[in-house]
């Protein structure tokens, strides 16, 4: 009966499934089936027996609603830590500082909800089912600019509103969602091997445009947009 793929947890799940109480007869039966786990089974049955002997006693005072919120928090943390999962996932809420920056940029901010969580620009694009080329074409950007916006190499305060508006239209998302995706600490590209974390050099939107592969016509267009927004 012993299955080499079975873990002790699998066996204990089966014990819980099949036994109503932690009797010695039941323990012996399981030890005969899985003699290699005799010690673990005995310890588990002993723990179960002592807890079973106290069933019906007063139970600890637990705030179940709070534990429900913690479960939600664990789920969000898990998804944040496993952001490489391809399936759309909830993300951690934006910080107060980010909200203030968004408000300073002229966007209204609703109370925390899945819609105003901080997300990466690339995720928004892929979640919308769009190709990067389509975004570049519609927004008059190139791939270096998109990469710098995604990694926050360009500080949010330096991103023209027109750029945010174009991204929002192209992606089909709310402007404030785009704004939240564009803010936060600058991210390193790839891995690094040095003991100290290398510094990320940030650059202005104009510097990024100047070093981009955009046509001269589009570079001029961005210079004019920035100029008019600053004078507004």
């Amino acid at each position: 009966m012993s299955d080499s793929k079975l873990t002790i947890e699998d066996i204990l799940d089966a014990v819980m499934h099949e036994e109503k109480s932690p009797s010695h007869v039941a323990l012996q039966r399981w030890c005969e089936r899985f003699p290699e786990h005799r010690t673990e089974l005995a310890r588990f049955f002993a723990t179960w027996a002592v807890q079973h002997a106290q069933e019906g006693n007063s139970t600890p005072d637990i705030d179940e609603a709070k534990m429900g919120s913690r479960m939600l928090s664990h789920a969000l943390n898990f998804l944040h830590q496993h952001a490489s999962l391809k399936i759309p996932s909830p993300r951690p809420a934006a910080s107060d500082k980010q909200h203030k920056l968004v408000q300073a940029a002229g966007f209204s901010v609703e109370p925390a909800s899945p819609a105003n969580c901080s997300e990466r620009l690339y995720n928004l694009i892929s979640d919308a089912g769009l190709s990067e080329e389509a975004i570049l074409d519609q927004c008059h950007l190139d791939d270096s600019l998109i990469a710098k916006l995604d990694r926050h190499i360009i500080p949010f305060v330096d991103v023209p509103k027109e750029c945010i508006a174009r991204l929002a239209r192209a992606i089909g998302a709310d402007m404030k969602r785009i704004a939240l995706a564009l803010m936060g600490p600058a991210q390193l590209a790839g891995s690094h091997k040095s003991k100290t974390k290398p510094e990320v050099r940030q650059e202005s939107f104009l510097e990024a445009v100047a070093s981009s592969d955009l046509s001269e016509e589009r570079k001029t267009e961005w210079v004019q947009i920035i100029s008019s927004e600053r004078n507004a």
Partner: protein
Amino acid sequence: MDPQSQIKESSFPQYATPLTKSKVDGTPYFRPPKVEAQIAEALASDPSTWKSRKWESETMIYLIRLQWRMGNESSVLALFEKLGSNIATVVRDNAQGLDSVTTEQIIDEIEKEVVGLIFAEVPSRKSEFLEVSTRLAIKRRTLTWIKKLNLSNVRTITESSLSSIIQEDQTTNVIQMYPDERPEPVDLLIGKEDLRLNPERIRSALAAVTNPKHREAFVLHYMEGWPIKSVDPTIVTLYTHFKRSDRQISTWIKTALSEMRSALGDEI
């Protein structure tokens, strides 16, 4: 949910994706019929209405996985909160004698593990057992954590603990339940005829045992039928469990009984 009912094949139409794993004896896992019915009902309704419904935990786990894969974040988040509350209830109900802080720590750890299982890309026995019986899966984890933290020997015992077990077994004579051929220290301490304790007396007496190991030895020996020692090495005994001499264990039980007798005064 009755564990036995879960192993019977569901006759309800399989609207949910079938489970793929099997029990340790090779028979496939099936969701309880009630869960299958709830899943079918949920799939026929608007997800925005799910939050206000009362679902079984197994149903919520299925719906969370389904909605997450479909990118319906708001339904997933609401269900997670409700599932977390359910998990807290199960842990609390199986953590008699533990304090609130320790119990919340255990809930925290179990919730993290359950989240990992829910989002597992490849199903496993553990992840599917959650869908077969969430309550038993959580109870097992609670006991495992208590064992890990060595908390099974907590002192707090209140009324009603032993009575239910003994009433369930329809006996009030503890000694006669598990006769031991060899002379017991208890026999030297108190005559067997005096041990015809009623459940309430045993319960209150057990609460008076100060050393957790002594109480554990008493519970295992007199309530669950563990022999102290056996000539058969394949038999699990108190000797193999505690790794102490049979004399030492007998002394523990004797001490436990002595404390129980003191607590009960002239009753035994």
